[in-house]
């Protein structure tokens, strides 16, 4: 395992210290907790937005803390949901008197830990609501299972719920905006190579020189199936097949996110961006905005995910709103 780290157990706090040192005028860390909040938190009269999860998905989630997006990002150990305590601390730190929305990715651990934190906050009289993001079409959706994972579509939830909160929306309205995104956002990912959880010291799976993992999540786990390496255009087609079959995008304006898993060169992300645009053109899906980059990563995994958010006028307005965070800037 080759990583730019010091001691394995210090990675998360050291990373957060680096983030705050890079943005000392914007961010601060809650003393004793792996929580990054807006420097000016709590913002009086604004609904607070808290998200988080295991670390290793950088810039998610602390990189999305700032005006127009999150008020706090809670960082668990690598690929491990944070415990309830830091989430609770985050809620207390960002509550500006109009309640706090928790944006949770749909993993058993995240859901349980965040909800416990919500119960703790409610017990202290803070109004808390939560949404669970489950945009990953690679996983079969079913009442009898854990259901779909939350992946890169979560960034659109942050953006749009954040814009509604910044515009003065109530907790109910902010939650509705988030749910509106969740109903309209779908993603799928693939990997060219695995990643190594630092404390584990070895990769999560192995792949042959001509093999890929299709339908991966964001925790270095294997995908729903192995496949042979194909041209980028064919990979994109296969992924879009799944997304487009899930909800109907025809004739609709959409936002497209081409998300690198951490070790994918931007060059390759743009090659896949081209392929996605060409396919969407053929399908009559109009791309309203395109985001290309490392938005929701899996350590040093090579690969990418595609996310499509179906838009309407309300979502477009909120998507277009400004945001100014370390990893997502729009004016």
């Amino acid at each position, binding site marked *: 395992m080759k990583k730019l780290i010091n001691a394995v157990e210090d990675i998360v706090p050291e990373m957060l210290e680096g983030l705050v040192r890079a943005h000392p005028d914007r961010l601060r860390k809650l003393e004793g907790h792996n929580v990054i909040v807006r420097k000016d938190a709590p913002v009086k009269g604004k609904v607070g937005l808290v998200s988080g999860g295991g670390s290793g998905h950088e810039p998610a989630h602390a990189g999305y803390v700032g005006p127009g997006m999150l008020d706090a990002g809670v960082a668990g*150990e690598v690929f*491990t949901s944070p*415990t309830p305590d830091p989430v609770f601390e985050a809620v207390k730190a960002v509550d500006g008197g109009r309640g706090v929305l928790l944006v949770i990715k749909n993993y058993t651990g995240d859901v349980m830990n965040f909800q416990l934190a919500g119960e703790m906050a409610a017990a202290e009289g803070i109004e808390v609501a939560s949404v669970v993001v489950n945009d990953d079409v690679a996983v079969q959706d079913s009442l009898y299972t854990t259901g779909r994972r939350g992946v890169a579509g979560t960034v659109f939830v942050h953006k749009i719920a954040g814009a509604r909160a910044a515009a003065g929306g109530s907790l109910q309205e902010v939650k509705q905006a988030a749910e509106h995104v969740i109903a309209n956002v779908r993603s799928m990912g693939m990997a060219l190579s695995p990643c190594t959880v630092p404390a584990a010291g070895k990769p999560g799976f192995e792949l042959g020189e001509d093999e890929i993992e299709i339908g991966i999540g964001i925790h270095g786990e294997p995908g729903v199936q192995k496949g042979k390496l194909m041209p980028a255009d064919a990979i994109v087609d296969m992924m879009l097949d799944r997304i487009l079959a899930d909800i109907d995008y025809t004739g609709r304006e959409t936002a497209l996110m081409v998300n690198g898993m951490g070790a994918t060169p931007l060059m390759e992300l743009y090659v896949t961006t081209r392929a996605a645009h060409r396919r969407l053109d053929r399908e009559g899906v109009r791309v309203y905005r395109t985001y290309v980059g490392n938005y929701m990563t899996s350590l040093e995994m090579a690969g990418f995910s595609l996310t499509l958010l179906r838009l309407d006028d309300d979502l477009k307005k909120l998507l277009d709103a400004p945001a100014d965070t370390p990893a997502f800037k729009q004016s």
Partner: protein
Amino acid sequence: MDTAERLDGARLWRMVERMAARVAERRAELTELDQPIGDGDHGINLHRGFQAVLAKREALSGQAPGAILKGVAMTLLSTVGGASGPLYGTFFLRMAAAAGDAPSLDAAGLVRAFEAGLAGVKERGKAEPGDKTMVDAWTPAVAAMRERLAAGGGLAEVLAAGAAAAEAGAQATRPMVARRGRASYLGERSAGHQDPGATSSAIILRAMSEVAAEAPAS
């Protein structure tokens, strides 16, 4: 066979220390089990939690069983994270509630505590037997303990029966297709791998059984 034998705080604390030691020894194995069907952190998570529990030795080791169990629960809850953190947290919290503030538990009381713990895990995680989770270790374990208790078994025998059943239960998760937790994302690909959480549950119960089988210290 001493059916009147009771589990007091001191002995329970030795069990907790044994759990921590066994988890420490086997954490790499637990993490390796979590790689093919999870995210490769289960051993790391649980080890972190039990190390935090050990750090509370001074506050907890002299307490009654209920207080120890509650301390273990709250510590795991606030240090393990992931899915197993709230689940083990809930498990021990429910055990603590069942133990109440009695200075010691007899075998029947211990089995009732395990029953409460299992019910708590099922409630929090919504998993049923066959879903390929820790429930598949605890369900046969609790059944076996209940049976051995009914047959007049003492603490050590009951725990030995529970540990053996938990180990068999953990092994039986291998062919299962997961329906809960991270492994469920793999669908059919989850078959053929033993569940890490069921395995750690068996390790925990085996640690208790080991201590129960030893001559009580001092």
